């Protein structure tokens, strides 16, 4: 068994460029919700030394000097382009694991007879041609190696034209290559772990591969031992073709402007709950408890600080937005204290289980769930956009709503925002 990992290059920036060719060749960043931090960088921006996750306000000077263009994140567009990309990539192998919005693994079982370099090139060219998105392909005997090969393809350390197959390299070539890659590039090795490994003189991928797996397991974790095994070519991680149903669903967001009143918080919590409940129903689950939390801005030391959360158990599990929202609003009333500038609120659905297996209650009133109503709401919102049908508690004004100063249109998903051609 071998694996391929295909990864979109600077995915969000690339999506923006497809519909706005003016961004081609210019330094572009995409900012997180509320235009806070850098979540995607074009190569030009990377060359300027801008780091992932850097707050935008710290970059203002640099941005002015180099005319960096900042786009608000347009997740509607990225999700649509991602779906298209995954569908194309999925046609190259019967086994596909969609790992994130811009990367997927393909299983190569039964495809070993192919010229994998040519196979990878075809895939790369098709995605570029059909969607205008650049991708890189990494191929290896394990998922960890495939990910590393992808890194090599992207940085042009090995392979050719954005495709790298570790299976093509002689043992000594691979050793030389791995000796040049810092251990932090290995899947699952974070910054903390990198520091600890350095203390043991493990600084390159080669060091880690040839370290004693047992010792590392005792010192760190079974996970790290598995990583070492995978680097040696023993596959420990299989493809997860079906994403498992989530155990918790969180919906939270920072506000566009500070919020001071209970009524505004109630609107925000209602909205977040509507989205969470929609996701809950989408995966055919019900929730047994609801958590609500609110907080002020921890980075504003001069403001009075407050943060709190509470869990509200439900008498019986449900996926009904009205009951979930009701519970969340009860929790919120307990939490709310006047006199603070709230910056963020959120809800979490907990104790999820499959719908249809709820335990009946002996002495309780039958639950007033309205599954048909929920179905109608979900379908209307899918067809005409989020918030078409909603609870009145979500409010109308939404002055607290997210800031998205430079949001590109929903080019591919809204009839009213299609690209214009002259």
């Amino acid at each position, binding site marked *: 068994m071998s694996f391929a990992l295909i990864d979109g290059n600077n995915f969000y920036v690339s999506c923006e460029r497809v519909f706005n*060719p003016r961004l081609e060749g210019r330094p572009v960043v995409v900012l997180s919700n509320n235009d806070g931090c850098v979540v995607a960088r074009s190569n030009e921006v990377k060359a300027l030394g801008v780091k992932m996750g850097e707050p935008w306000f710290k970059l203002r000077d640099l941005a002015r000097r180099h005319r960096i263009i900042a786009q608000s994140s347009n997740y509607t567009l990225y999700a649509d382009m991602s779906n*298209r990309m995954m569908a194309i990539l999925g046609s190259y192998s019967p086994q596909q694991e969609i790992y994130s919005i811009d990367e997927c693994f393909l299983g190569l079982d039964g495809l070993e007879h192919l010229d994998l370099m040519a196979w990878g090139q075809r895939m790369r060219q098709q995605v570029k*041609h*059909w969607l205008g998105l650049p991708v890189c392909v990494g191929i290896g005997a394990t998922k960890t190696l495939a990910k590393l090969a992808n890194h090599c393809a992207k940085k042009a350390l090995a392979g050719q034209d954005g495709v790298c197959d570790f299976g093509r390299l002689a043992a000594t070539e691979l050793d030389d290559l791995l000796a040049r890659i810092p251990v932090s590039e290995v899947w699952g090795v974070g910054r903390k772990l990198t520091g600890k490994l350095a203390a043991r003189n493990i600084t390159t991928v080669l060091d880690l591969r040839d370290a004693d797996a047992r010792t590392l397991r005792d010192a760190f974790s079974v996970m790290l031992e598995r990583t070492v095994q995978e680097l040696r070519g023993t596959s420990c991680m299989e493809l997860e073709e079906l994403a498992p149903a989530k155990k918790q669903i969180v919906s939270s967001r920072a506000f566009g402007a500070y919020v001071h009143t209970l009524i505004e918080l109630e609107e925000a919590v209602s909205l977040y709950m509507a989205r969470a409940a929609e996701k809950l129903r989408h995966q055919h689950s019900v929730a047994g408890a609801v958590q609500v939390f609110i907080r002020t801005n921890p980075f504003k030391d001069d403001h009075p600080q407050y943060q709190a959360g509470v869990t509200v158990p439900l008498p019986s599990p449900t996926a009904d937005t009205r009951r979930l929202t009701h519970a969340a609003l009860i929790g919120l009333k307990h939490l709310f204290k006047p006199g603070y500038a709230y910056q963020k609120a959120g809800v979490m659905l907990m104790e999820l289980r499959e719908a249809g297996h709820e335990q009946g209650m002996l002495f309780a009133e039958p639950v007033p769930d309205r599954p048909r109503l929920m179905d109608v709401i979900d379908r209307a919102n899918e067809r005409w956009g989020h918030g078409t049908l909603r609870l009145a508690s979500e409010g109308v004004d939404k002055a607290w709503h997210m800031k998205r100063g430079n949001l590109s249109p929903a080019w591919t998903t809204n009839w009213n925002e*299609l*690209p*214009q*051609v*002259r």
Partner: protein
Amino acid sequence: MAWTLSSIRASTVAKFTRLDYWSIIQVMEKLRKSSHGGRRPGAGRPRVETTQRVRVPESLMNVVQTMVDAKKLKAVALFPSPAPSRLKLPRFGHHVRAGFPSPADDYIEAWLDLNEHLVEHREATFFVQASGDSMTGAGIQEGNLLVVDRALEPRHGDIVIAVVDGELTVKRLEKRRGKIRLIAENPAYAPIEFKDGQELTIWGVVTSVIQKFKR
């Protein structure tokens, strides 16, 4: 009135009207009896104007009226128009009178899907909107919806979306003796020429134009 008594089931009526099951049976018996001899309901060529008289004990008049209403209701519930899925319309093997239900169901041959008609490569297909009048000669008007397939190789004579000066533009592609030009289908616009070394990006090939009529 073109309904036949035998087609009504007392249990259905009971469910529908929440009336007592046995009193309904009673009514039905009376109705059946009264239809013996003379004209039978539903017999012969039905005419819209045909009427018939049925004698009913006064005490059961309300029940009968409810049943009649229920039957009317049921006719609506029984013959729903087939609910087509979004973008799909049924194609029948023969002409079917509108409003008539079941017999035609067996003859549905396929579902006509405009997507199927207009979209060859699903993942590579995008919609754009035409603006301006540079392509009126090709039947593309201001505001028309263009279906763009990025999977197709652009050929001479295709109407394409090209990137010119960082903007998306729709023109006809001309490849002649190694020279490439973008031609407007309107004499008011000059062709766009490309010199050696100048790169032209073709964004996609336009496969259809959709114009909705204003009304």
